């Protein structure tokens, strides 16, 4: 077994991607100046959130998000052993490295942490209620951002109001405000998350100490909520399917385009009533990404109505067949209570039972945030961000700076003020901007580089692994453990003997044919009875879980979406296999053992 991964400095640039570094921030790439530090560290690819090669602008969101994570550990709560997580982009892919607090500082950080984290834990519900207000208001502010084109001449009321500022100023400052909002959003995101995980880990550690063999998913089951916002979009699809059948408009869902279906619905009162219900559900619940939410290219239901419409059409068939689509909420509650009371009873003393109750109580207090934030930030707010950026893209396209609206994501975050200034200056002076002559060619080049990067597969990790991975956030958030690190070190290609290992994320043992899906666009290919093999799954794939027999993912741990949803649907899941989509091909027979975390290729 090798004792280290490749140095980031040894990784070659894929053919056709030469000069890829210029697509990203100078501070986000490995560089000679920091070589000693970078070469001595351990960097893992964050495929949980950023599985694909990043475009320049999406990379900017990655940087902001990860910096915000660190801010809370390092400067707000003074998490005693952990600073933030360092970030790099290599060949377009996201790599992370947890930064420990210096040994000598840990003790001094403890009283601050107790005071600061203690305040949040003691006031959690109130602060979380405030958070929901804050984040909704932020989304509202983002929605109101106005990226309309620069006018031929300013409106008369600019004159009559004595505004003294024009549309160019507005355009530039609106972009700055969008960036500020992204920055604020990601600070909100981590305001609670690390503390939430810390409380969960404390309960987790207690359970492992009391019951060394307790399955991780048993602990997750005791804490996890049953009525979670992340399930709401799917619940609404099911309600809409039921409504279509009960109000007799289900015959209009005939596989036609959304426009056709809507036109047919609009012809009578029941159809219009259905559309009204759709509209009510759609804001905000269909601001739901088909991916992790971190890519502008992820499809958002509300803008790709064919996706939820397809699901509704499938559900209508089931409603007609008399299938009960309701989640068995009462049964799930009962099962959760059973698991809790049985482990509790097995504890050795009343003192332990008291500690168990307190820790479980805190975990359940913090968990609604852990489970729900994802909808508000990654799905809802991000879908607004991508939408606003496309509005800006429209302005740049109309001005001839770019050929396609989506080319706006080929700019770096920090480049756009210059680009917009160029646009503004040309507009204000009445002379040609340089942009239309300069950018289309440059963006075509960047697009080609990005394509070359997309075709490349990043190694799971780089550099020197720690002897043991105990850093709690790394374990919890990314599912990286000493075991997974040594599995990566052991396997060049993962499955020489036809067996892949990952997290036993949802129990059960099944065999079936594989369906390998590399992106959300392919989920329509999934057939009944297949085993889904994907880099990761997104919450919005929920409807496909009614078709498949099991799930295998490349990335993610016990609390990944695939794990949560599979437990909900009672399907076996093995997550974090690292090489699943690379080793398995569609049609191969698999055995998925969600009890042991083993996936066996049978042919």
């Amino acid at each position, binding site marked *: 077994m090798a004792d280290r991964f490749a140095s980031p400095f040894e990784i070659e640039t894929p053919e056709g991607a030469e000069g890829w570094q210029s697509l990203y921030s100078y501070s986000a790439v490995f560089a000679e100046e920091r070589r000693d530090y970078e070469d001595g560290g351990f960097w893992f690819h964050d495929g949980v959130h950023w599985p694909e090669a990043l475009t320049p602008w999406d990379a900017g969101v990655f940087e902001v998000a990860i910096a915000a994570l660190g801010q809370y550990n390092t400067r707000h709560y003074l*998490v005693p052993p952990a600073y933030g997580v360092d970030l790099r982009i290599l060949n377009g892919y996201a790599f992370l490295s947890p930064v420990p607090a210096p040994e000598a500082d840990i003790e001094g950080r403890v009283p601050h942490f107790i005071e600061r984290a203690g305040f949040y*834990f003691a006031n959690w519900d109130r602060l979380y209620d405030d958070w929901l207000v804050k984040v909704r208001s932020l989304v509202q502010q983002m929605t109101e951002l106005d990226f309309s084109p620069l006018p031929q001449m300013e409106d008369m009321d600019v004159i009559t109001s004595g505004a003294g500022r024009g549309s160019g100023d507005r355009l530039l400052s609106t972009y700055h405000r969008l960036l500020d909002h992204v920055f604020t959003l990601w600070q909100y995101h981590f305001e609670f998350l690390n503390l939430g995980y810390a*409380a969960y880990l404390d309960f987790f550690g207690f359970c492992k100490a009391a019951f*060394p063999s307790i399955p991780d998913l*048993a602990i997750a*089951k005791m804490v996890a909520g049953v009525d979670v916002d992340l399930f709401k979009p799917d619940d609404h699809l099911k309600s809409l399917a039921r409504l279509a059948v009960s109000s007799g408009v289900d015959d209009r869902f005939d596989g036609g385009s959304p426009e056709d279906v809507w036109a047919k619905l609009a012809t009578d009162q029941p159809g219009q009533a259905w559309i009204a219900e759709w509209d009510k559900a759609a804001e905000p619940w269909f601001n739901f990404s088909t991916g992790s939410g971190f890519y502008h290219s992820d499809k958002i239901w509300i803008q790709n109505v064919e996706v939820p419409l397809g699901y509704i059409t499938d559900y209508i068939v089931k409603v007609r067949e008399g299938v009960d689509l309701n989640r068995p909420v009462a049964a799930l509650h009962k099962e959760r209570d059973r698991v809790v009371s049985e482990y509790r009873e*097995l504890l050795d003393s009343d003192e332990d039972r008291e500690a168990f109750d307190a820790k479980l109580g805190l975990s359940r207090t913090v968990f609604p945030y852990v489970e729900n934030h994802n909808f508000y930030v990654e799905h809802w707010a991000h879908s607004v961000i991508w939408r606003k950026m496309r509005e800006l893209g429209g302005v740049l396209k109309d001005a001839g700076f770019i050929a396609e609206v989506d080319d706006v994501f080929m700019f770096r975050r920090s480049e756009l003020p210059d680009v917009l200034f160029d646009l503004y200056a040309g507009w204000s002076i009445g002379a040609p901007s340089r942009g239309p002559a300069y950018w289309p060619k440059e963006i075509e080049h960047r697009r080609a580089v990005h394509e070359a990067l997309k075709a490349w597969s990043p190694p799971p990790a780089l550099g020197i692994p720690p002897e043991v991975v105990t850093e709690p956030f790394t374990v919890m958030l990314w599912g990286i453990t000493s075991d997974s690190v040594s599995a990566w070190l052991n396997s060049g290609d993962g499955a020489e003997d036809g067996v892949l290992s990952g997290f036993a994320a949802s*129990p059960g043992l099944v065999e079936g044919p594989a369906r390998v899906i590399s992106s959300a666009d392919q989920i329509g290919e999934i057939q009944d009875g297949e085993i889904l093999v994907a880099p990761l799954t997104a919450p919005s794939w929920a409807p496909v879980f009614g078709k498949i027999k099991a799930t295998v993912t490349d990335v993610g741990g016990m609390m990944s979406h695939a794990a949560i949803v599979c437990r909900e649907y009672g399907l076996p899941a093995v997550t974090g296999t690292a090489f699943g989509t690379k080793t398995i091909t569609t049609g191969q027979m698999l055995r998925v053992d969600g009890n*042991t975390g083993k996936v066996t290729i049978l042919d």
Partner: protein
Amino acid sequence: MTECPSAIAFGALAAEFHPQVGGKCASLGVMSQAGLPVPPGFAVTTRVFADARKAADTMSQIKDLLADLDSSDNVALASAAIRSRELVRNWELPEEHERVIREMYADLCTLCGVDDVPVAVRSSATSEDSPDASFAGEHDTYLWVCGIEEVLEKIRACWASLYTDRAIVYRHEMGYDHADVDMAVAVQKMVRPRTAGVAFTLDPSNGDRSGICIDAAWGFGEGVVSGDVTPDNFLVDKVMWSINRRIISPKTHAHLLTDGAPGAHPTVVRVELPEDQVLAPSLNDDEILAIARLARTAEKHYGFAQDIEWAVDDDLPPGSDIVLLQARPETVWSKKRHTVSAKKDLVSSIVDTLVNPLYSRKGAQTA
């Protein structure tokens, strides 16, 4: 009170008849009804014994034989004992009782799908005056009894074993009246295990009480208990009922039943296994979970961690082929405390978790 039947299946043995079936049968009945499936069989009640005794009318002779016997005079004791036993062995079974016993045995043969299914015929003595008397090991047990005629003969032989030398001395020393002790008889299927082994209702490697640890090997459990075969090992979670550990060991040998010479009883012999069995799991998942549930039921029934012996009986229908052979309290870990002792203050405990995770500390589970 309902009239006591001639014979009662263990699974249907109501508590009201415990006085008529003796301690051994009563305990088999209690276990069957607590969801602890012992090998199937039935109890021949003391009513049969009493009716046969009455019909034969030999008790006064026996009383005379044993009266004023000097229990230190071995020769006189042995002679009186032999003559008493002869008398009892010749008791006639009242016809009605014999019909019921024949039916019960035939039913057992049908259940097992085996003609003349081999059974153990065990004495289950009881004393109306001393219901708690154990009579442990005082009376005879006959193994590998095949066919109804031999069963009927051995029932009488169990009755007669009331008058073995040691039983006579035991009663004498305990001050029981010879005529006050009644004899019920347990007729119980001999187990023919495809797989057998032991199960602990905790993980013996670390004392984890959420685990049920199963050792299993082909054939009889002797090899697992004595350690001359390396068993497969499984760990099942008591709450989630997931199989958390599965170690399939090379099982080169097994203790299997071998037919003896014609007319002789079969014997258990340690044999080498064919290659295809060596690395094959000796239990499937359904069986693993059924054994774990059996062990957990025993633990709940007795209120203590248990160490049980079980077998998968090849003669019984799948789904009810797992039988409990023995249950005793686990003694090693049960005596230890294993308090987690987390810090009381939640935030301080979180600091501990972050700085020095509980689960990475050594010896955290024993205090």
